[in-house]
């Protein structure tokens, strides 16, 4: 796949962020504030290199399809490594470097004045490198390497403020769950290697004679990885906690790029999935479920970043559903649009949080429209896009593709779920928007009146804010606004790429990428119809949100209403359907119990005790022998006599024997 060759641009765009990371890590203290621009520059150049690479990849490929492959080195026979640039990886690379660059620039402003300014950019660059490794690798092990490295980067960035116990815990949780995912991919690799004797995508996909059941097993294991990385049920619990990290991190890693790696993986392995209906069904179902659950949970959150986190989870659920059921273009398209608008939403919320000194609880906001008009418009466009209001935002097009695709591939239930979820999405996004920007500012209201029971659970506790940021606002505001402004453009417009069905530029771009299985039956309803239904649901959602939070009466006594809602919030929502508790009991507590049993009892008492006993028994034997040593001569004489007697008996008998 792809034509072999040496592509300097490829290596350049791949390794530049690494160089940036190393430079920032090694010379951080010397660089001081220059670290930010430097780090951004590395990624920016990498983006340019990507664009150039795009051109280079199209050269000399029949049909202008993109495909470039460069082999690097090999560990042992069968474990050969290389880089692959095809439409899929190109798309991801563009997002990673492009959106990544913008977020870098944003971070210069956002992280300005932080003690570990340079370290932050080192991590950020390192993440970009890791993500590029993930998407550019031409084999599963390379993918796994990238997979693990992005996990590490996210670990570092979530726990960036490592003096916060909550951040540390969140980071560890995220990492461990992701390692569980890695393990899944590892096992898939075992099965692939055992049957194909190679780890390259090409061989694995070209190979047809997998043992019966293995294909499903492989897909399942791969999807475990995907689910862990993309926060799919039930491995999603790390994502909301991951919001402990700085907001740009959430924007880049936990919205735009890393969490969509699962989508990439499934899309990349489309040939495998398209051969196994069960796997498709599984993935699609999980995706749909995640979308729904994420959306529902999104309705019950007060922390602005957690709301966005659950929405991310839900949106990725969409994507997974799309690629799962076989609507690969749709899923990938939603990743594409989502990258823009979700990044924008996060960055917008970042502006708010930044302005309110790390206040993240929407209940203590309100009426910010006047204070932060730019943020308002940024959020507004984002919400419009994510809610999928026809033709006004990118989200509409991609989401529509997925929902329609689900139906086309014969999954009506997922279809329904998709539509309902779209409505809920509109509801909770608008809820966030209205609570935040309409009404009056509630930041000066006493938390208890707002029903905030545990302020420390929401956002950064006030007392640690000094550790994080010595001073705000030294960096010019445009540093944060410009990237958001730039992002607005694709947020609004990019969806048109997907307009036009078969002959849209999007479909053309992916013409040779994905397998096209023939539909069992043409979709019962037309795409237009779907769009209408979705639109209706969305409108309902928005209306409800407006009535509850936006309308004048609601805005009047917002404090009281919010308090009531907080207090009345069903436990199921506040505890996020008890996923956390379940995982904790099933895995964490269980293994700790076993560990205690082994370490505190079995080791010292049983095993070691046995050995000690043998040693003591030797000593006991010693005392036995020495007990003959009474010191009395006559005892010794007696011993001799006994011995002699025994000798005599033996020899007398022996003599009798020989006679």
């Amino acid at each position, binding site marked *: 796949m792809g034509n072999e060759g040496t592509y300097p641009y490829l290596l350049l765009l791949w390794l530049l962020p690494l160089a940036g990371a190393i430079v920032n890590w090694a010379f951080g203290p010397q660089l001081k504030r220059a670290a930010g621009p430097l780090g951004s520059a590395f990624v920016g150049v990498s983006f340019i290199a990507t664009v150039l690479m795009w051109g280079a990849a199209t050269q000399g490929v029949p049909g202008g399809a993109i495909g470039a492959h460069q082999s690097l080195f090999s560990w042992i026979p069968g474990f050969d490594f290389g880089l692959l640039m095809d439409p899929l990886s190109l798309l991801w690379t563009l997002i990673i470097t492009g959106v990544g660059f913008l977020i870098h620039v944003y971070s210069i402003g956002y992280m300005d004045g932080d003690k570990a300014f340079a370290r932050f950019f080192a991590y950020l660059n390192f993440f970009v490198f890791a993500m590029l490794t993930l998407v550019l690798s031409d084999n599963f092990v390379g993918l796994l390497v990238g997979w693990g490295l992005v996990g590490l980067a996210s670990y570092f960035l979530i726990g960036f403020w490592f003096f916060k116990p909550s951040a540390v815990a969140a980071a560890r949780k995220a990492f461990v769950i992701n390692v569980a995912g890695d393990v899944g991919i590892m096992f898939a690799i075992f099965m692939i290697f055992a049957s194909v004797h190679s780890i390259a995508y090409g061989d694995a996909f070209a190979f047809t004679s997998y043992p019966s059941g293995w294909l499903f097993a492989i897909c399942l294991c791969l999807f475990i990885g995907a689910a862990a990385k993309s926060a799919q049920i039930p491995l999603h619990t790390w994502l909301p906690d991951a919001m402990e990290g700085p907001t740009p991190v959430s924007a880049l890693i936990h919205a735009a790029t890393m969490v969509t790696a699962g989508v990439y993986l499934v899309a990349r392995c489309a040939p495998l999935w398209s051969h196994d209906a069960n796997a498709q069904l599984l993935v699609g179902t999980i995706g749909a479920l995640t979308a729904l659950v994420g959306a529902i949970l999104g309705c019950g959150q007060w922390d602005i970043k957690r709301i966005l986190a659950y929405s991310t989870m839900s949106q990725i659920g969409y994507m997974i559903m799309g690629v799962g059921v076989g609507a690969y273009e749709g899923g990938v398209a939603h990743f594409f649009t989502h990258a823009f608008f979700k990044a924008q939403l996060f960055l917008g919320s970042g502006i708010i949080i930044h302005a309110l000194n790390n206040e993240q609880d929407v209940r203590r906001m309100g009426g910010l429209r006047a204070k932060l008009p730019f943020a308002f418009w940024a959020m507004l466009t984002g919400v419009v896009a994510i809610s999928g209001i026809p033709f006004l935002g990118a989200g509409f097009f991609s989401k529509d593709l997925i929902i329609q695709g689900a139906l086309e591939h014969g999954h009506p239930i997922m279809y329904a779920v998709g539509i309902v979820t779209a409505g809920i999405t509109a509801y909770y996004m608008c809820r966030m928007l209205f609570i935040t920007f309409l009404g009056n500012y509630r930041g000066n209201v006493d938390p208890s009146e707002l029903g905030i029971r545990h302020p420390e659970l929401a956002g950064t506790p006030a007392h640690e804010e000094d550790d994080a940021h010595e001073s705000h606002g030294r960096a010019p505001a445009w540093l944060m606004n410009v990237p958001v402004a730039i992002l607005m453009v694709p947020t609004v417009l990019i969806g048109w790429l997907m307009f036009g069905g078969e002959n849209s530029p999007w479909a053309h771009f992916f013409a040779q990428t994905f397998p096209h299985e023939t539909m069992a039956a043409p979709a019962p309803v037309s795409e237009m119809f779907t769009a209408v239904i979705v639109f209706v649901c969305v409108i309902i959602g928005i209306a409800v949100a407006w009535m509850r939070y936006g309308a004048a009466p609601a805005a009047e006594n917002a404090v009281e209403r919010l308090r009531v809602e907080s207090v009345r919030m069903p436990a199921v929502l506040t505890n996020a359907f008890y996923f956390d508790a379940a995982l904790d009991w099933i895995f964490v507590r269980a293994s700790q119990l076993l560990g205690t049993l082994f370490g505190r009892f079995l080791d010292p008492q049983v095993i070691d005790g046995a050995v000690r006993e043998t*040693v003591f028994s*030797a*000593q006991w*034997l*010693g*005392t*036995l*022998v*020495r007990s*003959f*040593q009474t*010191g009395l*001569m006559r*005892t*010794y*004489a007696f*011993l*001799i006599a*006994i*011995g*002699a007697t*025994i*000798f*005599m008996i*033996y*020899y*007398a008998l*022996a*003599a*009798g*024997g*020989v*006679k």
Partner: protein
Amino acid sequence: MTVNVTNADWSAVAPLAIVAVTALVVLLADLLSPKNVNRYAAIVIALLGLLVAGFVDYGQFRTGGDYAAFGGAFILGGFSTVFESIILLAAIGSVALMGAIGRDDRFAGTIALLLWSTSGAMLMAGAGNLMTVFLGLELLSLALYCLCGMAERPAARESALKYLILSSMASAFLVYGMGLLFGASGSVALADLTNPALASSPIFWVGAGMFLVGIAFKLSLVPFHAWAPDVYEGAPLPVTAFMSVATKAATLAVLARVIYAALPAGIGDKLLLPIWIVAAISMIAGNVGMLAQHDLKRLIAYSGIAQVGYILAALAGGTPMGLRYAIYYLAAYTFMNLGAFAVAAMISGDREEGTRLANYRGMSRRHPVAAAMMTFFLLAMAGLPPTAGFLGKILILSASVNAGYAWLGIVLIVGTAISLYAYAKVIRAMYQRDEHAHVSEAHVSVPLAWASAVVCFVFVIAMTFYPHTPSNILPLVK
């Protein structure tokens, strides 16, 4: 039958004669020399005499002719010379440690007794008939009875008494057995014990049994071992050093000569089975006996019990290889023991603090080199590489396995495992770090003791990497 004695006969016994005469010279020198130097004069003369004897002995070994002197009473050969040399080594080693023993006015006599007992042991090494065996043994033992009592401690006298009575009892068994053997064979010559008719003679069997009882006592094999720990502990350090090697070496020489050359063909396995069994018991009992001992000499007594068991394991089956390996291990054992005693003597005062293991605690701080050497010798006894003890054990193992006595080899392995633990306890004491251990520490360090310790160290190492087992050592009786 009459024998006419020629010079050849006398030169055959030259080494032990030289030793015996040296004793007289020592006594004379003591009478003539002034009081303040006689101690060292005695030591120097004794060492010179022993060295000369050693050279003569080595010469005999090189010329290597086998010769039955005095009508077969003493049989010169590679066998006798090798054992004689080992005994001489023991004598040299212990004379070197004698610096601080006893009272001045009895010193020369002590040395003389040691030399005579040496000559007795050498006589046993070459003994060709029952009389010389008996006389050699008695000469060795009688002198040792006296030597044990040579210290100013009640323990010494007690050990002398115990040794005297028990050993005499054993000698009585031995000599009674000899009587029966004489009755069975009608001759006192070991050569006539090969008479096949004896294989079916009950007197012969019973006589051999009592003879072996005496031998087993001298080898301190369980259950005839009980005297050894007490006697070793009570006797003065150099005497113990000598006893622990010379007695065993000489007795082993007699036993080996009987096993290899003085039995009717074909009954060896059956006749000697009890010896192998007690050897096996000794390997285990000796090693477990070492646990929780508080005196070095006592510890070495127990270890000696086990070591003799190892050596017998090599002799089991009576293969020529076995004898060579046994001699190799005996030599290794000699050096290990003498080395350990030399180190103990280094740190001993007039009351032999150096043998009380309590005084070894934290020794690595006070005398690092001595501690290191002691560690080395103990590890050698335990049979850890890279020491001759290690190689010797492997040789013995091979011998016993090849001779069809694998079970002895297995017992050896078990015993070694136990002994490791026992020796390690001493080492542990030496390397314990408790500064507040108030031990009565005498800083007497005899230069000769140092010298012999170093020599033993060198030999134990050298024997490991140049393992030479003399080849022309098969014993003869005629």
